């Protein structure tokens, strides 16, 4: 019986919900092992002294979360980060684009808010960071959320002592959309035109993160008529998804796109990975966090 902890930090619980979607497969995993702490699913209130496998969702945004991550690391044999917030910082990390103090001024000047008292529940950190910036992570399961089958296969392999492997390809690998080798020179917005459902989005001028994103998901978004938005983070061996996308854009279109601007597209090419990107580090004076 492997003792499992399942916890969400600053995130949306979506990864745990994706895991719940496994139904029988999840129940089988839970029954064959011992779930010792999982506030979303059960009533245990204390972090146990000994954990074999800790699975953590969400990024780190408060001091309490840093302490939790450290405590769990000390008490766990293996620590797995589940989902792109935990692995790379995720969408909430886009708020890191603004310095913390400026952020505060902004959110407080909203119309319709009468400020009475400062909340003092916890101490906020200036930025959202991935868990790996605070403690050692043994294995990452990326995705927003990770694909259900990935969760099942990876957990089963890890729990039986094996070393799971992530895809070595990009999202385009399994995308059925056709490429004919001609690219639009202008970037288009999704609402402006109804895209040809059979042809590659990038060729048609719609920014699709497929070439810069870790594969293995089966390209469900392009198949549902939407470009990939990069939720699985960078491909194997590539640490910066946004730069990889810029590289793909310039090499595929053979010339820089005339209407591309970083401020407008930073939320597209770094949607899930900004806190762990080189851009963030450059803007942060070379520091990681």
């Amino acid at each position, binding site marked *: 019986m492997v003792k499992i902890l399942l916890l969400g930090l*600053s*995130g*949306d*619980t*979506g*990864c*745990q919900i994706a895991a*719940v*979607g496994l*139904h029988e497969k999840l*129940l089988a995993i*839970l029954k064959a092992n011992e779930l010792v702490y999982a*506030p*979303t*699913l*059960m*009533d*245990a*209130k204390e972090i146990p002294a000994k954990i074999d496998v800790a699975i953590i969702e969400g990024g780190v*945004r408060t001091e*309490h979360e840093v302490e939790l991550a450290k405590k769990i690391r000390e008490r766990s044999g293996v620590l797995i980060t589940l989902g792109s917030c935990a692995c790379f910082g995720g969408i*909430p990390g*886009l708020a890191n684009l*603004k310095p913390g*103090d400026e*952020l*505060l001024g*902004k*959110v*407080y000047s*909203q119309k*319709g*808010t009468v*400020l*009475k*008292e*400062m*909340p*003092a*529940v*916890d*101490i*906020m950190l*200036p930025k959202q960071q991935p868990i790996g910036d605070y403690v050692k992570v043994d294995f990452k399961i990326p995705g927003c*959320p990770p694909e259900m089958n990935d969760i099942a296969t990876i957990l089963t392999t890890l729990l039986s002592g094996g070393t799971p492997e992530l895809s070595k390809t990009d999202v385009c690998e399994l995308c059925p959309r056709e490429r004919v080798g001609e690219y639009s020179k202008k970037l288009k917005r*999704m*609402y*402006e035109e*109804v895209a040809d459902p059979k042809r590659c989005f990038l060729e048609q001028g719609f920014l699709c993160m497929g070439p810069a994103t870790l594969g293995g998901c089966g390209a*469900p*978004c392009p198949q*549902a*008529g*939407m470009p990939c*938005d990069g*939720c699985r983070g960078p491909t194997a061996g590539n640490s910066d998804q946004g730069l990889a996308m810029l590289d793909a854009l310039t090499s595929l279109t053979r010339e820089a796109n005339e209407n591309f601007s970083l*401020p*407008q597209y930073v*939320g597209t090419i770094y*949607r899930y990975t900004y806190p762990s990107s080189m851009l963030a580090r450059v803007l942060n004076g070379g520091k990681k966090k």
Partner: protein
Amino acid sequence: MTETIVINPLTRLEGTGKVKIEVEGGALKDLQFSVAAGPRFFEYLLTNKQAEDAPRISERICGICYVNHHLVSVKAVEDAWGVEVPEVATLLRRTLNAASFITSHALHLAFLALPDLLPIKNRNVIGVADANPALADVAIQLHEYGNRVVTEIGGRLVHVVTSVPGGQTKGLTGEARYKLLREGRVALGNARKIADAYFGLYEKRANDPAEYMGSDTPYMGLVDKDGGYELYDGDIRVKNGKGEKLLQFPAQDYYKRLEETTSGHSFTKIQYLKDMGPIGGLMRVGPLPRMNVIDKMRWGTAAEYLKAYEKLFSRPTNDTAAYNLARAVELVASVDEVLDGLANDAITTERTREPVKARAGVGYAFVEAPRGLLHHSYEIDERGIIKAANIVAPTTFNHKSIENNLRQYAAANADALARKSTRQDAMWGIEKIVRAYDPCLSCSVHMVEVDLTVDGERHTNRRDTQ
């Protein structure tokens, strides 16, 4: 001597929250219900982003109510741009929204709330599966059905992708439609089984108003043009516990009708109805309020269950115990609505969207999420870039009313809370009430911020005077 009791973390619910209770001399001194999930600044991070990306970004607020965030977000952008979508797109979205209720309610009723109502020792998912394997099985099938509808229409499970200003990027094939219809009839039977189990439990229950308590608050929910049950469109109706209609207004009147303030002990903001002020205007939203504000159910099976509900609770009722039973009625209603949508031939129309033009403007939208009303509004510039965003989730609306409900219970049970021998049960009573609301704590984190430490230096935040 003051004794402080803390329930932390609250369990079997979405997100991170805690309750702090202070008891002195056998009486309640103070109680604080806190949302402790770290704020994620979604309203800020949506600014300067392309408006068409908002549905995909903002749904990451919540792993349970993602469908509702996705839909309300696209509606807000379309409202700003003055866009009308094709009939098929509305039909697909309504069906998608209803399907999210099936999944969410099945999960909550069978696995999160049921352990509170059954005499089982192991109060969790596995406990329910062991005590009542047949019911757990039905719930899993229903959860799977909701997920299949969401995946088919939304393109992907947990974080759907298909809504874009102007319509949907993916339609439904005839084959997929018939498959979902066929499975939907089984799902309706399964929803009835879960609802019947709840009605069975509630019929046997003493119906003791002291168990969950609850007081007369404004109740807020959507209604269609005939005052009927509505989850996707329509006006916001407000009624009080006496059944008097206080207000009815369209989404665009948000700032005329609602205001918000902050609390020192929670990361969530506090909403109230301006007309009734910061205390009298603290509302409740969700399954029970929806039953309180509507005149009727739109579909047959659900109408039958609403009638059965009326035998156990008056409509309106202030008794928080009715939340679970109202949820059971809604589980049936949501399968009804999915079947209704799928039965409409227009749902397989091939062209599901039209190209649209961005323009400068402000857009407002509401939908009902499983936990209650959900609001997004955006200010968008002429290039289609978001300049400001406001997001109010159901638990933001409910937050203060939940705290008041807990306070009411803790005051009545202060003695039991003070004594060690009875404390455990009284604390469980508190958690039971929180859970009845099925709060979504990560959703509710609506950027009330807080003590911020930047490089070791603590910043306090002051509201800019405007």
